[in-house]
């Protein structure tokens, strides 16, 4: 009987140790790409390819205040969409549209960003440690990278994807990511092969998102919808608090 208790104790202790380790690893990954001690701004150039429908391009201004859970995304191009914007404060996310009338719509971080394959939540700070727990780990070679592959499951409902799989290099950077539904259906794959170092943090040079569900069969071959975006014009200069208001979006609307 004592032996059983001893084995159970060792197993539980081992499990707790692993959980803590994983939590720390996820925290490290989050801290690599979050700016809790300053504001952050960048310009995102996004290109979405829809098979059979052509290519659309957008330029977006991203303004983040991670410590207050706020962001503003302002469309800069194309000219027809210029001034359209998103404002996120805490759990609230508003989309300000100008057509057919100028109005705010409550939207969700889980929704697609401007009909692309990116989600609104892709542009917030990373919160893997708060949102997921690790359920399994393996090692895998990904091109030239030796990676640790973590399978994560959401610990609450306020996440965009119920399950996710990360390919992480030894520098704690996520190089590849697969997002799944609760039933295990692959929804999309994201690749971040290279990063740019900026003020001690790391920002992907280019993110390629391949939608596993959206696409079209052309000449007998299924072509996935793909969204690629690059992030440039990075800055941690302080941003005026006024830009994190609905009025700022109203002012910059057409």
């Amino acid at each position, binding site marked *: 009987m004592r032996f059983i208790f001893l084995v159970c104790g060792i197993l539980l202790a081992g499990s707790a140790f692993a959980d803590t380790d994983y939590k720390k690893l996820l925290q490290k990954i989050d801290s690599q790409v979050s700016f809790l001690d300053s504001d952050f701004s960048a310009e995102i150039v996004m290109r979405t390819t829809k098979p059979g429908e052509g290519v659309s391009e957008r330029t977006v201004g991203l303004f983040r205040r991670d410590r207050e859970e706020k962001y503003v995304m302002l469309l800069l191009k194309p000219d027809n969409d210029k001034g359209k914007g998103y404002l996120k404060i805490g759990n609230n996310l508003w989309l300000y549209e100008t057509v057919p009338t100028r109005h705010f719509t409550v939207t*969700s971080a889980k929704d697609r960003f401007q009909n692309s394959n990116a989600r609104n939540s892709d542009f917030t700070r990373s919160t893997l440690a708060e949102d997921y727990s690790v359920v399994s780990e393996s090692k895998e070679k990904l091109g030239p990278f030796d990676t640790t592959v973590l399978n994560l499951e959401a610990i609450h409902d306020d996440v965009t994807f119920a399950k996710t799989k990360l390919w992480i290099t030894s520098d704690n950077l996520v190089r590849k990511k697969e997002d799944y539904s609760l039933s295990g259906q692959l929804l999309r794959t994201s690749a971040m092969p290279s990063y740019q170092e900026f003020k001690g943090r790391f920002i992907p040079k280019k993110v390629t998102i391949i939608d596993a569900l959206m696409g079209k069969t052309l000449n007998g071959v299924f072509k996935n919808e793909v969204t690629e975006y690059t992030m440039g014009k990075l800055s941690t200069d302080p941003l*005026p608090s006024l830009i994190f208001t609905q009025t*700022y979006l109203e002012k910059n609307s057409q």
Partner: protein
Amino acid sequence: MRLFVVALVWALGAASVWAQDSADSLFTNPEPDSQADTTQKVTLDPFNGRSINFFETLDVQGYYISGYRQDGTLVSTPVDALNFGFGTDMRLDRTARAYASLYISYPTQNSTNTYLYNPYQPSINLTNSTLSFSEILVKELFLDYSLGDAAIFRLGRQTLSWGQGKIFNPGNLVQGIENGIAAKMAAALGPVNMTLVTIKNDSQYNINNGVSLDSLGDALLLEYSASQFSLGASGFYNSHVGGKADGYFKTSVLGADVFAEVLWEHGTAAQMSTTGVAGFFRDFGDDTKWLKMQAEWLVSGEGSTGSFAAVSDQNLGFSDQSVGVAASTELLNFMSVKPQVAWLHSLGDGSGQVIFGLVSTALPHIDLSLALTTVYGTPTSRYILHNPDTENRVWSLTLKASFNFDIKSSDGKS
């Protein structure tokens, strides 16, 4: 059927495999990590030079509504609406902007907003051989001014809405602002966002001697958001209407957005009224939302004849409760069809309204809609007395087609 399921599973599986293969190919020869180029910064002011834009819109709508009144009379009405809008958006520099949006409409009494389920427009007058348009009407006409990064001002005719309810919204203390003129100031006080509004709308506030300062309605909104919740407080005062104070709390619970809001009103004759509304929004589904649902519960102090301009003396308190549920699905998105359903019900007198609608956006610029509406209750109940259908039908079928076209032109920056 079995073949279809097998084909669907194969297609999803194949799409996933291709997605994984395509992603792995990006790692065959990746660019090395490097230092970021920080020589440039993204602009905070996308419109930071002198520019002028012109825009025009044309919105044509046609309805055919047919249905029965409570006494069994069949009433069928064709309804149409035509709006031609035009305007300019001028910017002098990053601080100043002038915006004008004007329109003419047919019929002349037409509202600027036409809704699928509540077509308030009068029916076509078949005795007229020519169309009679309204004179030029002002939709929005305002001047923006930015005082550095400290505050943004807007003066003129403008739109604005407060309050958390999507079905019942008693917390909209700036109700009617779009029909008057107003001055608005927005500023951020640390983590608190502040909006201060002064509204001139005599008909809204039952004012006859409209030139005095006390004809203005003053409203203030303060909002604070933390990572897990948002709080807001607002107030309104006009010496002819009285005072109103409102507070709300909003958070997320089990993936649903949840809010609760309370409104207190104090009339000029010392009448008191309290109104509460609570609700949630939740969507279900990973990529395609198979259900989006909004539900709200209202404990109204407004009575059946309550209006913004007067605190109701028919405060029935907990005897006057209403519920509202609205739902839609994206399951038919592949056909560009959106089904929607809404149910409004007064617990006080057992009356209500149920609407089922289908909207098709398959054709460019053209929306086709079909709605089945029923209003139920006793002849003296709220939804029968205040039937949104001006023809008082209790069962009706609405067919609607609308065409929308808008164009912008710009001289660019100069």
